[in-house]
Structures are given as structure tokens and as C-alpha cells.
């Protein structure tokens, strides 16, 4: 009996000792967890209203004034848009006449309807939309058509004024064949024509020989292109965190001054910038714009401003990142 009690108490004691010795967690204090941090979002806009540091203020204001001047020179007022609907109507009427001659196009009535409807929509559209339309149109054009058109224009230019009228009609009809099914494009094109009207009236009235040559040979020579490329290669820090297997192409359209400094940059696939799940694209586009800003004035050829005043840079990181 005693033996049993001793054995039992001994065993219990043993268990207790064992437990306290080898289960240190029982006595251990839990680890302090770091307290919570509350996060507050501060709204940001393109134009910050944060107060200037006293010294910096004057300088920044100077720079701003300069920039304002630049902007007012180059960006046309948007009021122009209001005139759009009338114009399209007129054009479409003209087109009807042409189409009767051309025969290949569907009945004019239908076209009229088609064109009218989107017009109404097109007026209140924000800038972005028109941008997109422009882009679409650009991608559609293929080089062979381009050449044809260029040849045609040459012919037209060689002929005298009365004949020019005929040529115009031809042009219109051909234009219609391509674009009639996407009436929104017309709106966009007209918008563009308005924008550039000032320049066209000045320059394309008289076609000098040198300009004629430029039209035949458009594009940079290899060495000119290489110079520009080499310059931008050195300025572009490719973001290293980009995903592979993704479309890492950013197309940026530039407007340049004769000295190679940049007046305007425009990301062509702007819609992708704020797409969810493609945040890397915004990063990439921003890096490309930084590269241009860092590099300017760009190393452009000294001659032939007309050729390269509008320039498109295709930043492609696939080669560097994908491997």
C-alpha cells in the first residue's frame, strides 16, 4: 500500500518536474507585438498647393511663367470643337456626291445616319477619347497605302489649279472608302486638321523643290537615328522590377523645337496607364518620359526640322528585361 503511494507520488512529482523543465513555454511571456499604424491618404494633384520654400519661390515662378508661354503658343484653344458638327455635315454632303460617282460605296442615306449619330456623341467627349481615336487611326494605316497616297499627292501638285479640284474629289472618295465605316474617325481627323490649320495654310500652298525631296525621303538616316538612339539609351534607366512575359512597349509621341528640346510628350497608349493590374506600365511610361526629359535637347539632325518636328519614340524593354 505504502509502496504504491510512494510510487504514485514519485511518478507525479517526476511528471511535474519534467513538465516545468522541458515546457518552458508555459512560463514564457508572449512577445510584444508592434502596435498598429494608422495610414492616412493625402490627396495629391498635378499641381501642388504646398507652400513654396521662400528661396525657391521666385525661381519656380519664373520657370512657370516661361512654361505658360510655351503652352499658350502651342496648344490650340478647345473652343474649336463646337464647330465640328457643321463641318462634318458639309463634308458628308460632298461625299455623297462623290460616292455616286464612285459606286463602290454603300448607299449614301445609310452613311448619313451613321455619321450623324456619333457626331452628337463626339462633341462632349473628353480629350482622352479623341486621343484614342487618333491612335486607332494611326495604327490602321499601312505603309503601302501611304506610298500610294504620297504618289497621288505628287501628281496633284504637279497639275495645275483647275485640275486640283478634280484631284480633291478623288481624294475624298478614296478617303471615304477607308474611313466611312468609322465615322468617329472623321470627327477626330477634322479636329486634327483644325489644330494644324495655321501651319498648313502657310506651308503647303507653295511646294518648293527641297520640300518635295523631303516628302519623298522621310525618316532619319541611319547615322542620325543612331545618334539619337545612343543618346536616349544612356538616359533611360529601365525600371528593374518589371515583370517579364508582359507587353513592355511604350510609344511616346514628341513635338520638338528646332534645337531638339521637347515641347510636348504624349504617351500613345494612355488608357493603359491607369489600368488595374498593369501598374508596371505606368512605371515604364514614366521612366521613358524621365529619359526624354533627362536627355533633352535631343540630338536631332541640324537640317530638315519639318521631317522630325513630330517624332515617335518606341521604348521597348522586352529585350532588356525578358532575355
Amino acid at each position, binding site marked *: 500500500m505504502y509502496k504504491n503511494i510512494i510510487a504514485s507520488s514519485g511518478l507525479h512529482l517526476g511528471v511535474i518536474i519534467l513538465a516545468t523543465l522541458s515546457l518552458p513555454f508555459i512560463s514564457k511571456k508572449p512577445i510584444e507585438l508592434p502596435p498598429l499604424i494608422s495610414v492616412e491618404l493625402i490627396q495629391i494633384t498635378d499641381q501642388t498647393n504646398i507652400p513654396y520654400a521662400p528661396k525657391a519661390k521666385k525661381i519656380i515662378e519664373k520657370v512657370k511663367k516661361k512654361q505658360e508661354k510655351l503652352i499658350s503658343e502651342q496648344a490650340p484653344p478647345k473652343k474649336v470643337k463646337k464647330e465640328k458638327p457643321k463641318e462634318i455635315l458639309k463634308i458628308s454632303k460632298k461625299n455623297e456626291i462623290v460616292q455616286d460617282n464612285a459606286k463602290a460605296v454603300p448607299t449614301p442615306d445609310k452613311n448619313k445616319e451613321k455619321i450623324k449619330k456619333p457626331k452628337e456623341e463626339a462633341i462632349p467627349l473628353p480629350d482622352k477619347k479623341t486621343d484614342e481615336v487618333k491612335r486607332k487611326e494611326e495604327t490602321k494605316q499601312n505603309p503601302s497605302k501611304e506610298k500610294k497616297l504620297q504618289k497621288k499627292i505628287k501628281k496633284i501638285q504637279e497639275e495645275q489649279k483647275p485640275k486640283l479640284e478634280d484631284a480633291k474629289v478623288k481624294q475624298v472618295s478614296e478617303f471615304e472608302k477607308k474611313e466611312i465605316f468609322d465615322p468617329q474617325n472623321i470627327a477626330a481627323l477634322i479636329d486634327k*486638321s483644325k489644330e494644324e490649320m495655321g501651319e498648313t495654310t502657310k506651308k*503647303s500652298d507653295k511646294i518648293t523643290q527641297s520640300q518635295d525631296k523631303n516628302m519623298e525621303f522621310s525618316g532619319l538616316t541611319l547615322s542620325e537615328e543612331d545618334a539619337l538612339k545612343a543618346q536616349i539609351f544612356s538616359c533611360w534607366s529601365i525600371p528593374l522590377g518589371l515583370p517579364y512575359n508582359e507587353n513592355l512597349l511604350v510609344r511616346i509621341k514628341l513635338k520638338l523645337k528646332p534645337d531638339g528640346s521637347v515641347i510636348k510628350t504624349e504617351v500613345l497608349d494612355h488608357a493603359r496607364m491607369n489600368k488595374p493590374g498593369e501598374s508596371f506600365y505606368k512605371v515604364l511610361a514614366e521612366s521613358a518620359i524621365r529619359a526624354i526629359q533627362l536627355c533633352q535637347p535631343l540630338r536631332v539632325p541640324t537640317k530638315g526640322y519639318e521631317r522630325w518636328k513630330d517624332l515617335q519614340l518606341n521604348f521597348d524593354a522586352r529585350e532588356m528585361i525578358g532575355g
Partner: protein
Amino acid sequence: MEVNEKNTLFYFCLFLIFQTKSFSLIEVDITRGNLDPLPVAVSPLFSDEQTHSDLKKKLNINDLGLEISKVVENNLRQSGLFNPLNKDAFLQKPDIAHLKPRFEDWALIKSQALITGKVILKDDKLRVEFRLWDVLAGKEMLALAFTTVPKNWRRIGHIISDKVYERLTGEKGYFDTRIIYVSEEGPKTQRIKKLAIMDQDGFNNKYLTLGNELVLTPRFSPTNQMVTYLSYFRNLPRVYLLDIETGIQEVVGDFPGMTFAPRFSPDGNKVIMSFAKDGNSDIYTMDLENRIVERITNHPSIDTSPSYSPDGKYITFNSDRSGYQQIYVMKSDGSKVKRISFGNGLYGTPVWSPRGDLIAFTKLHKGRFYIGVMRTDGKGERLLTENYYQEAPSWSPNGRVLIFYRETKTDSDGKGFSAKLWSIDLTGYNERLIDTETDASDPSWSSLLTN
């Protein structure tokens, strides 16, 4: 009216002529750039006199704004993607920079991004504001404010780093994270091993066990503050769970033998591990809620080191069923087993990337150890680093960096042995030693603590 119409037609034709000119818009393809880290300037955060002295009393830190900026700077440098510029070169002092910075001054020192900010102490709460600027565009890219207790200031530095990293690279950061590892002390034959936890940058080191028993392979839960690991408690190797918040630990499952190589499922609800009996080991899962144990593989070979894909639909593991240790992928129910590694040598410890696109592994070939990654179909194998002995890669939560441990050879006297934690990113270039008080092995990266 007619005149007007004619005019329009005329303009329209002019426009067409012009249009053909812009058809031939010159395009230049830029296919190369430099892969140098992005130069950033981290201006010390500004604090006024009052805050300055208050903080000094409270935390015994001379200039908290400067310290936070150093944390950010260090994080960005470690990532290998950024090049924080030397503060001596800054032309603007923080008291001016925290207002609207003069971008010309920052562009002059070749900085492309700028971080400024302000520290305020209000009602015993620390409020830190920061702004990220695009120096070249002269634009504000990001602005946030954080409020917390003053003691927590290092984490604010990490969160700022994460936000900046995310804004500038387009992928999530990994700085506000912790690493759990096995701390090792003593001679090689009598190592004392303890579980330890630290911030991702090596600070705030704490020990979770006392070192009475051998511990191995701790793994963080992807969803909460739980850790699963292997402990030789009473010389019986078994998988345990440890809640870091409460300190409570428990055995996972009631197996009649040795369980090892545990890992959480991506939702944190299951633990997957190996169970060995009679020289054969297979893969099992246990549901942490209802404690149901499920057998996944059933093969006379040794199947071990299981790891879930981030969507939980697949499992990668290693097995010697082909004669040599190789990596396999199967569905999460154990069906459709497919071998994916076919290179020379032995492959082990496969770990599925949190991004889902890659599997990291250890490879042994001709007596050398490699850490590498391959795509989930086994193609595109890339070996990132090679050494005498290294293993156990663990992914950073954004799937860009791997942490692993490396041991050095003992010399003829049995000395010179050490085990240290190293990290390397997917490019294979940015290899860095992570400083720990003691020797360290078997690291595991936590998920982001915020959000």
C-alpha cells in the same frame, strides 16, 4: 454659303495633303537602356524644435527624422533597384525641402526621385508625413501620412520604403516584413538552436524558444502570426505550431512517428508536411480548424518538402521515385504527378513563388550547391548562386528576392565553421549578407505586416 462650302472643301484637301505628311511620322525604336539602379534622394525628414526635444526625451534619439530617412535609404539600397544618393551632396536642407522642393537643386545632383517629409509629435502620437517627388517632371507622385506610437518609428520607415518601392517599380514592396530563422550557437557538434525572429533588415531580433531542444525549418503562415516548425522535443521529431502573439505551441496531428518539412497552405488553414514510417515518407495535410488529416501521396519512395502554389491548386515536392531526388508537381489532391526537373544533379527544397510563376530550389551537382529558379513547367532553369553549402530558399512576399542560408567549411582544426543568412534577387546579381547576432539557418520570410 456656296463660297463657304468651297472654302471648307479647300481646307479639307489641304488637311488631307498635310495628313499624308504625318503618315510618315518618324519612329525610333529604343530597345536598350541602362540597368543602373535609379538614383533617389532621401532628404532627412523635418521636425520642428519642439518635436525635436520631445522626441529626444522620449526615445533618446537625436534626430528621428534623420533616422527614419536612414531606414528608408538602407531598404532601398538593399533592394538593388535604387541608388540612394549621399546626403552630403544635398543642396537643400530638410527645413526647406519638406515644403516645395526646388527641383533644379535635386536634378543637379542627378537625382531622379526625391523623398521628403515631416515628423510631428502630437498628444504622444508620432505623425510622419512623406512625399515622393518626380524630380525631372517636377511633380508629386505620392503623399501619405502615418500615425503611431513613437516607439514604432522603424516600421514607419519600412512602410514608407514599401510605398516608394511600389510607386516606382509597379510591384509590391517587401520591407515591412519579418524573418523567422534558427539561431545557432556553440561548437558544431553541440549546437544550441533557437527559433528567432527579426525585422527584414536585421533589427528587433527576438528569441522565441530557449534552445533546450533542437528546432528546424520554421515557416511563417502567409496570413497571420503563426509559425510551424520541426522540434525534437523529447528527441521525437515532430511538427509544431507556434502562435507568436500568445506564445502557445502545439503538436500538429497525432502521427505515430516522425513528421517534418512543414509548410502552410496559402490561405493559412492547412499545414502540409511529410510523415516518415519504415523508411518511407509521404506527404500529408492537416486542416487546422477541424484537425482532419489527409494523405496526399502514396508511393514507396521518399516524398518530402511539399510547397503549395499561391492559388492552392497545386503542390510541388521532391521525390526520389525516379532513382534520384527530383522536383515534381501535382494537383493539390495528389493526382497528376509530373516530374519537372530534368537537369544534371539532385534537386530539392522546391518553393513556389508567391507570384506563382517560378519555383525556387536547391540543386546539388558535383559537390557544389546551387540556389536556382525554374518555371512551374520545369523550363527556363536559372541558377542564381553557387557555393560550398547552401540551401533552403524562401521567397520575399513579392516574389522578387530569395533568402537562404550558407555554411562555410570547417578547417582541419574543426574551426571556421559558420552559417549565415543571405539574400539574392531574381537577377542573380544583388547578393547580400543579412547580419544576425548569432549564426543563422533556415530562414522564412513573413508576408507584409500591413494590409
